[in-house]
């Protein structure tokens, strides 16, 4: 914890609540950082000489004569290439036993990019997972969350996406990660030998929840350094944004703010947008792509957190366990990437859009056939064929353990078409059928 010389020390706290304390002080800047008996705190309210501080780790055991030192600056992160390969806590302090990082001091939560200085996202991100690359292609500069139930393996999928994406840097912002999940990420990155391009800011469930509020800004400040200053492609993983929003509601509740829908603060949309809108494609080449996780409570996407998220992000990805093949798949119906049109058939093979649509349509036919079967109706020959197609499509392409490139995905899809259907049933443009139909 940093204390600099010649700082005035205050020792007279006038008010203490669960998360905040107040004292008389002058010359204090809004959002300035302070320490209260060594605990980090931030100015959240100034009224005359009365200063209210939010203590990130909580006020348990804080006495009225605690030593308060103002640091004269907002929360900052030191940025340099030394960040690569390191693990930090929510304050940007190393937790991997390594030395302090030296570098330029930057305020976190900095200003937004001027919209006219952005470039339309246009570079495909390959993940190897066909449920993503084939049906919901990701683009650099995009922001997209997984909408997942807490029991789904979203952390594993994210780790996999991160390792396979050809990003120069991967930045993990962990909020309320269980210690086990934190160690899982650490091991996976370690084993993959990818540690040198990974930077992590982690708040685990063992840390106080309010600290989480700093994590996305820390991660994105590091991301802006690499994407803007170094012109690198940066992938930011944020897990779990629902726990971040919960921390927001704890703070607003303790500040006596009037809650809006689902006890969330009225500013939830702006708070989330400020984070997600950091995703950007710079004309000079660098980019920040954000992949996040929003856990749902029993699949309810009308709750304020997923609802506001859906209005901000460019699509969403749903995971589902397919009982027919016993694997987790990327649900082709509810998932959506709003930016895929910018790349599919342009940076991928020309038949990509048509193959994608045909496969999903046939998969939908299989779902109808299945309902028919469950309701005790007779199946036609076509129904039977769609169902066997669906099983193989699910297993060979939608399952999250698939790892092939987009051309191989398209070839696999054509093989499945040829195996189960006639050309007319697939209904793809003649020129593509001529080139790719398996004989």
């Amino acid at each position: 914890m940093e204390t600099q010389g010649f700082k005035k020390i205050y020792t007279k706290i006038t008010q203490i609540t669960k998360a905040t304390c107040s004292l008389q002080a002058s010359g204090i800047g809004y959002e300035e950082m302070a320490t209260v008996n060594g605990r980090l705190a931030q100015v959240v309210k100034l009224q005359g000489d009365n200063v209210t501080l939010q203590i990130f780790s909580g006020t348990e055991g804080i006495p009225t004569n605690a030593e308060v030192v103002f640091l004269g600056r907002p929360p900052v992160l030191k940025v340099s290439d030394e960040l690569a390969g390191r693990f930090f806590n929510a304050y940007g302090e190393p937790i991997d036993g390594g030395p302090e990082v030296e570098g330029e001091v930057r305020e976190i939560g900095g200003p937004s990019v001027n919209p006219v200085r952005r470039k339309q996202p246009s570079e495909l991100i390959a993940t190897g997972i066909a449920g993503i690359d084939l049906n919901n292609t990701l683009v650099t500069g995009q922001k997209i969350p997984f909408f997942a139930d807490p029991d789904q393996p979203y952390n594993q999928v994210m780790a996999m996406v991160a390792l396979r994406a050809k990003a120069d840097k991967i930045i993990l912002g962990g909020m309320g990660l269980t210690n086990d999940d934190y160690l899982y990420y650490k091991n996976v990155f370690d084993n993959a030998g990818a540690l040198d391009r990974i930077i992590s800011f982690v708040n685990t469930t063992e840390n106080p929840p309010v600290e989480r509020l700093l994590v996305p800004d820390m991660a994105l400040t590091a991301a802006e350094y690499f994407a803007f200053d170094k012109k690198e492609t940066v992938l930011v993983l944020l897990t779990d944004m629902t726990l971040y929003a919960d921390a927001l509601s704890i703070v607003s509740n303790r500040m006596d703010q009037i809650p809006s829908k689902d006890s969330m603060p009225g500013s939830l949309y702006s708070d989330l947008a400020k984070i997600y809108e950091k995703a950007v494609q710079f004309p000079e080449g660098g980019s920040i792509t954000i992949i996040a996780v929003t856990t749902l409570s029993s699949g309810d996407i009308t709750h304020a957190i997923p609802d506001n998220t859906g209005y901000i992000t460019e699509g969403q990805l749903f995971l589902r366990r397919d009982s027919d093949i016993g694997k987790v798949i990327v649900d082709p119906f509810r998932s959506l990437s709003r930016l895929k049109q910018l790349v599919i058939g342009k940076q991928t093979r020309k038949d990509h859009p048509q193959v994608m649509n045909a496969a999903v349509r046939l998969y939908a036919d299989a779902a109808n056939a299945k309902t028919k079967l469950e309701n005790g109706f007779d199946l036609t020959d076509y129904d039977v064929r769609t169902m066997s197609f669906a099983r193989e499509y699910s297993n060979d392409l939608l399952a999250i353990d698939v790892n092939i490139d987009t051309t191989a995905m398209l070839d696999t899809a054509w093989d499945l078409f040829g195996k189960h259907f006639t050309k007319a049933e697939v209904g793809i443009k003649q020129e593509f059928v001529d080139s790719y139909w398996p004989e």
Partner: protein
Amino acid sequence: MEENKLTTGKVSGIIANLVIVEVNGPVSQNEICFINLAGVRLMAEVIKVLGNKAYTQVFESTRGLKVGEPVEFMGHMLEVTLGPGILSKNFDGLQNDLDTMVGTFLKRGEYTAAIDVDKAWDFTPVAKAGDVVVAGDWLGEVKENWIGHKIMVPFKFEGKYTVKSVKPAGTYKASETIAVVTNADGSEINISMIQKWPVKVPIRAYTDKPRPYRLMETGVRIIDTMNPIVEGGTGFIPGPFGSGKTVLQHALSKQAEADLIIVAACGERANEVVEIFTEFPELDDPRTGRKLMERTTIIANTSNMPVAAREASVYTAMTIGEYYRSMGLKVLLLADSTSRWAQALREMSNRMEELPGPDAFPMDLPAIISSFYARAGYVFLNNGSTGSITFIGTVSPAGGNLKEPVTESTKKAARCFFALSQQRADSKRYPAVDPIDSYSKYLEYPELQEYLAANIAPDWLANVLEAKNILLRGKEAYEQINILGDDGVPIDYHLRYWKSEVIDFVILQQDAFDKIDCSAPIVRQKEMLEKVLGVCRADFDFDNFEDVNPWFKRVINVFKQMNYSLYQSEDYKKYETELVEVINERKVA
């Protein structure tokens, strides 16, 4: 608001972007002030006054601001600069020109000029010496892109003035005096091409605001045919995320029969604005043969830009609209989304610890929304010509639930309701405007009814109402079929359902990404509606319900091919003939 000495003050409290200022003189509600933050001036607006304390909302981040910092009050409300050179610009919510800002990141306290005052324009006088003029009267004209941009007597002028002189035709800088007028006392006042106006005050430089009556064509069938909007009308588009709000708004901005389009991107995704920046300069405007960007002005206050400026952005857009309306132009104003504006109001109301209304929105939200929608309209100007602002806002209802305060308040203010339905979006029936729930109040206006009868066809309205009725009956039949089973209902139910499906597929659904289908001129819409109703009115001969579905699918397919073909082209006529053949297979003579 005229003060001899400007009031100053000192910061006494800060809660996020709410800053409390102790003042030493008079301040007015909504007055603009600048707060000093280590040499950077932050713009703020007074939103409440208590004793000698002015509560201000700051349009920027207040990080690092200290108590005791000096504040200067400006003696006027938030103003925009009006003059030639606004068109095709990209502004932020406070009318800063985003393109002239330095650097990739927005810097707080950086305010750029909305208009280049040194740019020269070819001026042609309209008024002459001796004319008696009032605010909003035309003094001259310059060519801005392809629009005859009128130079007007400033809207702030009260009473009558006599023109002393007007510059002869020639090239002048925007800031140069182009006319001199004298007031009742005989004092001379110089007028340049540039004037200022407070955004929260409506510009009333018109003589009369009649009920609107002229159809505004958008090329979108579900709007023009089924729920028409008029020049000077108001409408709104509520819909859950993923239901196609933005695609529909972009279609309107590309195709609508307006002289100019103002898009207020209010608290939405930055990449959507980037799409307009990127595509509009390339796309052709079929009306003028120029690029779409030449008639478009963007007010971009995206979701990550300061919240208070988000509220200002819709007012800035409306004021610019009113300025161009006063030139006798047809303006279409689109705001995406007004829910974000309402949320900005909620955030401030909350920080001021006001007692909340429903969902923590301020109690006066319905009043704020309706007085904003009231600024749209069709007007007669002082010289007898007409101008209009048509306003369409999108609403992003929380959880897709239309019973929330912003949707309900807007429903009371706007006359057209284009409800986007999740169910239609899921089944890929785009545009996902719900045909049963949506409405246009203008269809009930005798003024519009007369206009439609005279300009489209005498029986047009009757046809539209008949189509709506068929849709409703088709929905009822569908519910019956679902309950009783395909063979549990008379064949007539299947026919009724499939006739409504023909209207759905041929008239309601439209491919926004197809070059031809994306925009249908009204003559074409008339022909299609008549053809479709021809099918709906006919009797068909079927013995078995199983034959109904495949036959109607063939009919729909031929109709769709017509929609995809160039109007009256070879292909179009070929499908037209084919359609008659298919229909005659089953038609009872």
